[in-house]
């Protein structure tokens, strides 16, 4: 079973040379730490920066330079700042190559829910609805089950949706799963996790074809 860093490490392998990437809050943010340093990638943050760098050294924090998680950041040479409308022109206009975001639930038809639990928690969708409605390449980073142990990979989402039929790939602490016409297809197992255990933790229909390899991290 992977921890959050393990999930981020596996997703980092999906990041290719020349990609502009938008990282959501939480596990997705960690992906930046594991991208190979022999490829050129630029991270976009929807609050208005392209070419995001690492956190600043202590004492060098600037309240005017933050990411979408409101964390202080730095910029790399070649970076740019822009307004929110332009930021979402990049996103809606499909200029961003890869979107990685977290989820509360994903359904086997690619629906995603990650912004609201009616009556309990309403944080809002932020940029997630714009991202999932337009991005061609969306990877969801999440734990396979919630804190109560219930599956987050469902036949149908039960929470209010963020987007319909948009998720292509899911990387969890247990597996790499592709969302296909026929439902969830198991691609890889996390180290030490059996196909049976993944089936057990997946409420939606899980297709298993042939031998399922263990993830290479």
């Amino acid at each position, binding site marked *: 079973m992977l921890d959050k860093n393990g999930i981020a490490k596996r997703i980092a392998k999906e990041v290719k040379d020349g990609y502009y990437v938008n990282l959501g809050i939480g596990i997705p943010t960690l992906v930046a730490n594991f991208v190979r340093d022999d490829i050129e990638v630029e991270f976009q*943050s*929807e*609050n*208005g*920066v392209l070419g995001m760098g*690492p*956190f*600043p*050294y*202590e004492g*060098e*924090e*600037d*309240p*005017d*330079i*933050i*990411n*979408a*998680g*409101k*964390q*202080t*950041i730095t910029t790399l040479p070649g970076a740019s*700042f*822009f*307004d*929110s*409308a332009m*930021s*979402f022109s990049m*996103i*809606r206009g499909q200029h961003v190559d890869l979107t990685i975001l977290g989820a509360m639930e994903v359904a086997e038809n690619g*629906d995603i829910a990650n*912004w*609201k639990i009616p*009556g309990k*928690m*309403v*944080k*809002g*969708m*932020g*940029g*997630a*609805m*714009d991202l999932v*409605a*337009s991005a061609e390449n969306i990877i969801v980073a999440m734990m396979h089950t919630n804190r109560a142990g219930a599956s987050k990979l469902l036949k149908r989402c039960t929470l*209010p*949706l*963020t*987007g*319909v*039929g948009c998720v292509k790939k899911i990387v969890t602490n247990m597996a790499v799963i592709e969302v296909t016409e026929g439902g969830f297809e198991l691609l890889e197992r996390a180290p030490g996790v059996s196909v049976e255990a993944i089936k057990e933790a997946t409420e939606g229909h899980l297709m298993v074809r042939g031998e399922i390899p263990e993830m290479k991290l």
Partner: protein
Amino acid sequence: MINKTVPNVSEALKGVKDGMTFMFGGFGLSGIPENAIAELVRLNIKGLTCISNNAGVDDFGLGLLLQQNQVKKMISSYVGENDEFERQMLSGELEVELIPQGTLAERCRAAQAGIPAFYTPAGYGTEVQDGKETREFNGKMHIMERAFDADFGFIKAWKGDAAGNLVFKGTARNFNPNMCGAAKVTVAEVEELVPVGELDPNEIHIPGIFVQRIFKGAHFEKRIEQRTVRQR
């Protein structure tokens, strides 16, 4: 040169009244019009509709208006950082319209640009779509969204001049340029009010035509919400 300068925040906010709709620039606490917010707290006007990406934190930013129950309705995309906000929303005291961030930005830009409505795919098939016109373009479904209609827009810029020209800094830019000229009156507070002619016309982010009143903010705390650092 048409002079847009006003001497202080009280002059800048002349005309604000109970029940009005305001736009506030800022993302999180970055680039928020701190001086205008402080003045609205002092004036204690009520029944406000506030358009802002976030709702501040409990004791800063728009959280200060919420504490005094000055806000009737919030239109935002993300409100996760404010416990009092969540409490007022879940109890029904506060009306909240949550909308996608890109839609929020574009509804400002549309108001600025004189475009009454536009189509976006964001939120199609979700509750954001409820009650809205939908239409297919190029095989994909879209929702019709309308331009905002606000009384005042409160903007924070880094530098500005008497002509109302503005320059923003870093990610404190965010929604600020999109809200300029999007409300009936645009009020900009700046850290530095520089002499006319000092700003390079090539590097002005917002031309003064979009700004009605400009003043140098008396105080900017510029609070950091999530201080994250790395070790040397």
